[in-house]
């Protein structure tokens, strides 16, 4: 057993000294820590405290209106009462709360789903609509029971509305709730944009952005329409409760967008299509203004604004009619005989043909061991250039195609915009196919597929074969010809309007380039096309017009639009030919150009040309067909 020295006062005091030393070291440690926090890192923590304390409560900006070229509003906002729920105050028992609320106001499963989705995406301070457009009775009933629902309130909110419902749906598009991806994309846009860029200013406060344009004009002019959300700088507690407002920055409303489209013309054409599917594009050739941009069938964009219900969505998405498909923008069709005027012009410009040069048409053309048939048995006899267009003689163009070869055709057609992106102000444009030997080489994998066969050239002359263009491209090409080779970029928006001053800033028509053409050559083609409507394939349709109109019918064999997907029962209908038509009028100085397709309708003259006639009658002379209901301005 070890024995220790008596713990006398000296040894105790020694230990007290050591304790004092220990205490001193510990206090120095604390002082060091505090100096580190309060001096060295002070600015960092001051910033953190500030951002802790201040929340920005967004004040959404009014979205700009959509107005047609004559001042008719086709996209607008309205204010309605909504039941708003503060996300902070209902954590956990959302369903119970909604159950209780649904005894007072009607809350559909769709409302519930939408609300819960918003909650999931919520940020701090979020208040979200549970139910919009409350009736007076519902409002009164809620107000009586209000005390039972802290955090739930009635508010006036702004909603987007398309007063003409289905009308022009593909060109207008729609807005929908901004998804996480939308917000992330906008954040990247902001990060990438340079300081001082006015567009960057428009998108600078993301939390105030609840809706974004999803397709159509709403999408492509999003930054113009959106405006800049404002915000209140609010001091908040850790629990997110607002204490007081420190400052506020008002929102800047979005600008109005003035379309080049004549919405009455659009309405008329949509009505004229009836139950037919198809695409119709009308362009003012001098400016590139698109006057009508029809895709049939269409859909009601109002269904999408607050989130579409699954049943409607399924119906739209599964329909073999493909109502969601933007046909003029994305649908690619063989142009058929509407291609012939362009081929004829190519013949003149490349000096492969003169107007008076003739061929003798036996009704077919043999190339190798394949016979290319004309649609008229026995042939058209002696055919010059004008007759080839007026009577739509296939053999003339088989020969012309053979004489030109695929690459010469390609090089001539390319500047007209065939198989090229037109650059219209909508997203998702199809490029189509303007074949060439190079195109084939790049498109196919196997060497034997990459080779161009001479025989493939022949049917290109009549707008078949690999040719596949959008109706927009066809209209654009027609406009370029009508405009004597001056290429104007097609666009749906004419001007941007200040919502307060109503001052308009024109989105100047852009001349892209000029195609070097001999004016006499164009005159030959235009004259022949006028003759088509005087004595040719569509003469009966255009009898008695007060204006001269050039046109060309086309009938194209079904080729695109995913015919493989169709069911057997409906195959017959979906395999019928597409009826096409192109026109320009008045012939002397065209103010409108049309390209159109009526899917699976049959002959162009029979199904497409009459629609064009009525559209032109209205646009040029104000004549409204009796069978179509009057245009009524939306209330």
């Amino acid at each position, binding site marked *: *057993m070890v024995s220790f020295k008596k713990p006398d006062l000296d040894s105790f005091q020694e230990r007290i000294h050591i304790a004092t030393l220990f205490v001193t070291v*510990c*206090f120095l440690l604390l002082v060091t820590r505090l100096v580190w926090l309060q001096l060295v890192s002070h600015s960092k923590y001051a910033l953190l405290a500030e951002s*802790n304390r201040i929340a920005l409560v967004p004040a959404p900006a009014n979205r700009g209106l959509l107005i047609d070229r004559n001042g008719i509003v086709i996209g607008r906002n309205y204010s309605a009462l909504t039941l708003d729920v503060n996300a902070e105050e209902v954590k956990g028992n959302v369903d119970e709360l909604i159950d209780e609320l649904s005894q007072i106001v009607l809350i559909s499963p769709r409302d519930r789903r939408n609300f819960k989705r918003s909650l999931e995406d919520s940020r701090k301070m979020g208040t979200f609509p549970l139910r919009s457009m409350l009736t007076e009775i519902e409002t009164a009933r809620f107000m009586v029971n209000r005390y039972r629902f802290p955090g739930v309130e009635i508010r006036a909110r702004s909603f987007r509305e398309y007063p003409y419902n289905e009308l022009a749906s593909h060109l207008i598009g729609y807005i929908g709730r901004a998804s996480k991806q939308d917000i992330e994309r906008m954040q990247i846009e902001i990060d990438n944009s340079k300081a001082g860029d006015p567009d960057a200013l428009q998108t600078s406060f993301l939390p105030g952005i609840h809706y974004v344009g999803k397709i159509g004009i709403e999408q492509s002019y999003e930054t113009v329409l959106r405006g800049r959300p404002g915000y209140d700088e609010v001091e908040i507690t*850790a629990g997110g409760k607002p204490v007081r407002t420190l400052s506020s920055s008002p929102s800047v409303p979005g600008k109005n967008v003035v379309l080049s489209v004549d919405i009455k013309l659009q309405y008329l054409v949509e009505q004229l299509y009836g139950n037919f599917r198809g695409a119709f594009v009308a362009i003012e050739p001098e400016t590139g203004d698109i006057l009508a941009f029809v895709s049939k069938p269409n859909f009601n964009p109002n269904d999408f604004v607050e989130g579409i219900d699954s049943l409607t969505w399924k119906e739209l998405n599964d329909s073999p009619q493909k109502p969601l498909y933007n046909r003029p923008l994305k649908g690619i069709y063989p142009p058929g005989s509407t291609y012939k005027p362009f081929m004829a012009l190519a013949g003149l410009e490349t000096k492969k043909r003169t107007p008076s040069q003739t061929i003798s048409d036996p009704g077919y053309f043999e190339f190798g061991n394949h016979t290319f048939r004309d649609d008229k048995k026995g042939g058209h006899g002696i055919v010059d250039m004008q007759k080839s267009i007026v009577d739509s003689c296939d053999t003339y163009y088989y020969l012309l195609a053979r004489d030109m070869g695929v690459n010469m055709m390609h090089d001539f057609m390319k500047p007209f915009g065939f198989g090229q992106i037109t650059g219209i102000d909508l997203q998702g444009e199809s490029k189509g196919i303007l074949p060439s030997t190079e195109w084939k080489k790049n498109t196919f994998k196997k060497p034997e597929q990459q080779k161009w066969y001479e025989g493939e050239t022949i049917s290109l002359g009549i707008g078949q074969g690999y040719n596949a263009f959008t109706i927009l491209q066809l209209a654009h090409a027609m406009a370029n010809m009508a405009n004597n080779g001056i290429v104007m970029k097609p666009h749906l928006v004419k001007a941007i309007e200040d919502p307060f001053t109503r001052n308009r800033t024109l989105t100047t028509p852009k001349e892209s380039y000029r195609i070097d053409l001999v004016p006499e050559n164009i005159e030959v083609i235009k004259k022949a096309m006028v003759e088509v409507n005087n004595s040719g394939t569509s003469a009966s349709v255009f009898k008695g017009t007060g204006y001269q109109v050039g046109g060309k019918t086309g009938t194209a064999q079904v080729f695109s639009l995913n015919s493989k997907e169709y069911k057997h029962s409906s195959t017959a209908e979906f395999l019928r030919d597409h009826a096409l038509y192109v026109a320009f009028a008045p012939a002397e100085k065209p103010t409108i150009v049309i390209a159109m397709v009526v899917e699976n309708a049959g002959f162009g003259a029979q199904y497409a040309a009459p629609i064009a006639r009525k559209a032109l009658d209205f646009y040029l002379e104000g004549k409204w067909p009796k069978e179509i209901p009057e245009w009524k301005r939306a209330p």
Partner: protein
Amino acid sequence: MEKSAIDKAKNIFLSIFSGLDRQLGLILLGLAGIGFITFLSASQNTPVRFEDELRNLAISFVVMWIVSRVPPKWLETAAVWIYGIGVALLIAVALFGLIKKGARRWLNIGFVIQPSEIMKIAMPLMLAWYFQKREGIQKSWDYGVAAIILGIPVLLIARQPDLGTALLVFAAGMYVIILAGLPWKWILPFVGIGAFGIILIIIFGGTICAQDVVWPLVHNYQKHRVCTLLDPSSDPLGKGFHTIQSMIAIGSGGFFGKGWFQGTQAHLEFIPEKHTDFVFAVFSEEFGLLGNLVMLALFFALIKRGLAISASAPNPFTRLLGASVTLIFFTYAFVNIGMVSGLLPVVGVPLPFISYGGTALVTLGFGAGILMSIHRHRRLVQS
């Protein structure tokens, strides 16, 4: 007439305050003053009442005054009893205690008490008594006995589980044992192992805090606390939230502070327990580094004074008791400030004389009273 009335009042005043150590009194007055002004700011918009704080301070003062009048000899006599009752109550807690939030810490004896609190004073009393008894005849097994006296309540408290209090009681006892003369060759290895352990934790914090690593001997929440300390941002909305927010409060205070009642972190409810355990964050935010240096200086003076009193105390019991009580004050202050500033894990330790809370103030008043009593009875015993 008049003069004698004044004299009478003077005499009463003197009789109340005589014997209270003046230095210690002024330091405590300074700390209580800081505590009070901080309380006013921290308790704004909270249900805690200003009258309660005043009452608690008054009770604390009264307890201190009474204890300062009690001769140390009495405490020496009562030490075994207080310790014995404390241990008995802890056993009762283990058997019949109330369970709140998963811990068995409370006992209902008509009203609810927390016996572990008693041990904070009972432990140094008991050990000081023991070493007083063994004065001059210390053998190595005396430390064994001391270890048992220390170990039983500490283990009982740790099992509740209340690791924070267990560590504080353990520390209080260890101060007595070390000051009583525990040989350095027995102390240093543990200091070395401890330091080594801390360094290891700091270096390998990331690895050992991985989700699936299970620590032996400790509860999962305790592991979580240590890990949160190492990296508060690993759990910014959970356990780390408190630490992060109090660090923001302290850091944003800067050198001069934001001013009384101007702390946004405190007033916008970002600081948890802002009038009790985290009151230092409130003070720091509003009075800055300058205020903190004043506060730390006061605490340092308190400890210096307490140790000085102990050093000149007449016998081992008073010496060990006084020094241990003083070092408990130090431990509370160090652990509290360390935890609020993100240096130590979050354990429920009040800041002496600053934090709101009746029990703590009474315990601390009791401790201060012991120091004053030792100081007051020093000469009496010597003479």
